[in-house]
């Protein structure tokens, strides 16, 4: 195999790659930023700082604050189980973990609806006990957790495999118990993998639309996250609000991506 392709084909590849990215990724982004600030900073800022806009932002951040830590703890535990404790059930866990990747978020939303709805399997009993899941924050949290389960697991498993067990064994010969070994050796060794998973989880939770839109009922100022707010504003021809919230989401996403790149670099170092 040749290590370097001749100049013409290399240039062709570059043009195709960059062209593809520009057309499909950059152009829409530029368009939305342009549209948003077409008439200055005031209209979008005004829209986002409206009562409903602020509430949507807060609710989106609440989803992140609840779903991300839960999925991080679960993800690390699950990865440890998959890598360090081999047993028959692992193959099943491994494929089930991937379900949220494979399933359309709308289907996930519908599944939760069927489980917790007024006529669902658990809904009536929970309603009797005074617990409201559907069309309220708990249901939205469940949907957010569901769709973002795999990220920390998927990012942590290969790192755990790579570090092997020797460092942990060394810690135990030096007198560390299982808990001390986890905190002082295992966790610091996998920290960049976990952090990468956390960033991806955050981005997914922030952006989730399908599943959350089904279970939330999308009531303005109550059960509306930023993506739902964008959709409703767009449907109602409130373009400054739609664009403003979109740009806010895009900025949050870019921040997480930036964080991800920084982490990637640390991991490689």
């Amino acid at each position, binding site marked *: 195999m040749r290590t370097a392709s001749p100049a013409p084909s290399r240039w062709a590849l570059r043009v195709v790659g960059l062209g593809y990215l520009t057309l499909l990724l950059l152009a829409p982004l530029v368009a939305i930023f342009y549209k948003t600030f077409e008439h200055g900073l005031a209209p979008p800022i005004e829209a986002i700082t409206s009562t409903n806009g602020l509430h949507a932002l807060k609710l989106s951040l609440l989803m992140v604050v609840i779903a991300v830590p839960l999925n991080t703890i679960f993800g690390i535990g699950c990865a440890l189980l998959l890598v360090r404790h081999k047993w028959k059930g692992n193959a099943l866990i491994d494929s089930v973990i991937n379900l949220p990747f494979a399933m359309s978020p709308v289907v996930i939303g519908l599944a939760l609806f069927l489980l917790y709805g007024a006529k669902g399997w658990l809904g009536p009993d929970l309603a009797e006990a005074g617990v409201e899941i559907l069309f309220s924050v708990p249901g939205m949290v469940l949907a957010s957790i569901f769709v973002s389960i795999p990220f920390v697991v998927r990012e942590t498993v290969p790192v755990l495999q790579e570090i092997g067990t*020797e*460092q942990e*064994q*060394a*810690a*135990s*010969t*030096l*007198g*560390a*118990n299982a808990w*001390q070994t986890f905190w*002082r*050796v295992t966790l*610091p*060794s996998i*920290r960049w993998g976990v952090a990468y998973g956390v960033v991806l989880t955050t981005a997914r939770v922030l952006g989730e639309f399908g599943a959350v839109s089904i279970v939330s009922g999308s009531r303005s100022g109550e059960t509306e996250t930023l993506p739902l707010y964008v959709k409703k504003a767009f449907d109602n021809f409130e373009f400054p609000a739609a664009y403003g919230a979109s740009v806010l989401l895009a900025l949050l996403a870019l921040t997480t991506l930036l964080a991800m790149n920084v982490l990637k670099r640390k991991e490689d170092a």
Partner: protein
Amino acid sequence: MGISVEGAVKSFGDFQALDDVSVEVPDGSLTALLGPSGSGKSTLLRAIAGLETLDAGRVTIDGEDVSTKPTQKREVGFVFQHYAAFKHMTVFENVGFGLKIRKWDKAKIADRVHELLNLVQLPGLADRYPSQLSGGQRQRMALARALAVQPQVLLLDEPFGALDARVRKDLRAWLRNLHEEMNVTTIFVTHDQEEAMDVAGQLVVMNQGRVEQSGSAEDLYEHPANEFVMSFVGEVNRLGEDFVRPHDIEVVLEADDRTEEGVVKRIVALGFEIRVEFVLGDGTDVWVQLTRNELQRLELREGQIAFLRPVQAKSFNGSTPSDPPGASTPQGSDDGGDAEVSAAV
């Protein structure tokens, strides 16, 4: 602290790693577990440390049965082949790890760590990360880390296996000196017989999950219990039923009734030592170890015919000592079925 293993059995699936192994390691000794890969030597070492659980048998350290004790309570120092350095910690933090776990106070930890870094000749590298050290330095750091907690016993699993030949030789000598100074009971695993003989006072030769023989290097070399030990500890040629060391064959230019004819196939100069490979009439390959002076005296050339006279040979088949070709007067033999035959020259 003497270590004793009795009737150790361990299998991994279908693979029998330890098959009824018993070993006695005297207090303060430096013992090598020697064997080819898959012989069970590492499994045995790991079982002593508690990193493997035995299917049957027991491990005693200083008279106390530790078979069910978890690793972290056994007070063993363990050094891994690939160092097992904590990559996210500095050298200082690595060496001080066990002390921090034992909740020593900071000043005492610092004193002890620097004392150990001096001992392993790594002063001034305390703030480096393991990735900034060479292989030999990493292994010395790992050794310092294991010694920091003043273990009852020190266990080393192919400690020099990943290092290049030069560094390996240096570290061997250094480990021997260290053992003399510290006098902590030490077991180290190796597949390199030269390394085992160079470093250890006592050798335990293992093969296929069993102990073949244990004893001093000289014992094993001079009185191997069986064919395996003879061929694993030192070089050996096979002549029919007999085993002959390459330095126990005389090369002469004139035949007599005790010699066999061979053709010089290859002459390899390894410094002062010369390795001459012969093919005998029946197709057997034999090599002979000569000194440079002997070679010059004989003026051997590749393709030339010469005559080989085994001076000393061993046979492990049955109870009848078989003479080496042309041996005249058998002198004494080992006990049991194994026979040793020496020929007076």
